[in-house]
């Protein structure tokens, strides 16, 4: 399952801390480094690709449905 941005960021932080603490074999640190760089890319991609999707929740016959919602500029102004 794909990690959320938050999970990726937390994981990345813990990897950097582990690496900074040293005490790792070269192989271990290479593996962690590799993972860390992947996470950096992932986080970056996630941030870049974050899109705002707006939906409106509608209640019909006690049933909740949602539909895409385009905020109208004229609706946005205070009366």
């Amino acid at each position, binding site marked *: 399952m794909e990690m959320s941005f938050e999970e990726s960021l937390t994981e990345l932080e813990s990897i950097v801390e582990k*690496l900074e603490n040293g005490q790792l074999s070269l192989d271990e640190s290479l593996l962690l480094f590799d993972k860390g760089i992947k996470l*950096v890319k992932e986080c*970056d991609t996630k941030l870049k690709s974050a899109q705002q999707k707006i939906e409106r929740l509608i209640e019909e016959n006690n049933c909740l449905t949602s539909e895409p919602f385009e905020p109208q500029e004229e609706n946005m102004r205070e009366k």
Partner: protein
Amino acid sequence: MVYEEKGIYTVHEFTLAVKNILTGSQLSDIWIRGEISNFTNHGSGHRYFTLKDKDSQLQCVMFKWHGQSLRFELERGMKVIVLGDIDVYEQRGQYQLKVRAIRPDGTGELYKAFEQLKNRLALEGLFSPAHKKPLPGFPRKIGVATSPTGAVLHDILTVLKRRYPVNVLFMPTVVQGEYAAESIVRSIQALNSTDVDLIILGRGGGSIEDLWAFNEEIVARAIFGSKIPIISAVGHETDYTIADFVADVRAPTPSAAAEIAVPDRRELYSRITRLNDRLIECQRRSIADTASRLSHIQECIQSCLVLDKITNYIQYIDELTRRQTAGIQRMLEIKTYLFTAHAGKLNAVSPLGTLSRGYSIALKLPDKTVVKSIGDVKEKDEIQIIVNDGKLKCNINDKEVCRWK
């Protein structure tokens, strides 16, 4: 009818007749403004009070089944607007108003009602920090309950888009007027049945009357009962509503609510960049460390190699020495052999061979020249005679010429 037949009423009959006239009139379902006096909250749960203005008084009763929906407690001197129906209390022959609803009249009363509810809910623990739910650091979908008109939604969406474009589920909500409280409650409950992980409850600024729905108890309880954290953003910075106290976080304005709701993407970028730098620095250091360890080890290995070479040379030198010795030995043997051969030949032609046959050689001393003729020596000269096995030193005593051939 009874009075037509007899002409005389009993008190009760008269009272009933009055009651019939009054209750059949248009004095029902009527709003009356006045001030409360002589209020008693009876043990039975019914409320009895007098509504008065400077000229008149009106007896009022509010039975407990109507009183339950009362959102504040009556106090003497409170200005109110009551909704009720005319009635006659038969035992006393008194007309009175059966009150179904009471609203505070005017700002002062609203504040009073606000304070009352606030104190009661505070006592109940609805505002307690222990009940505040933490906000998600990175919400995936934010529910926004606010009016479909007005700037609030626009402000929230704009800030969200700028900081961190997150999905939004908008629930159009009535935020002012008679149906507002119920609409807010329904929105909170509806959003609770969706996959949003944060709710912003918003409304623009307004008077205390405009914001009143957010001071309703049912709204407070709906916010308290929400499983999803709620940020309230009602009115302007200085407006506080009950909803603000119950909400998990209170934002001074709807824009501020959006800022609280999501992290700033630019900050996240720089955070990730810093992490990336640290990561690379770690790795650079780790590789440099390992490389220096490696070169150290390499040096050790190299000195081992030198030693190895030296032992090789030692062995080679030994071998050369051995070969040299053998060579010299061989050469010696060859030379010895040649020498023996030559010596044999030499021996064959040596005058020494004649010595063994009894000849001798005379040498004149001191210059050791061979004496071949008697003319070579004089009397008294010293000579050396070499024989087969030695040398003799002699003096010439006499000379005599002989012809041997």
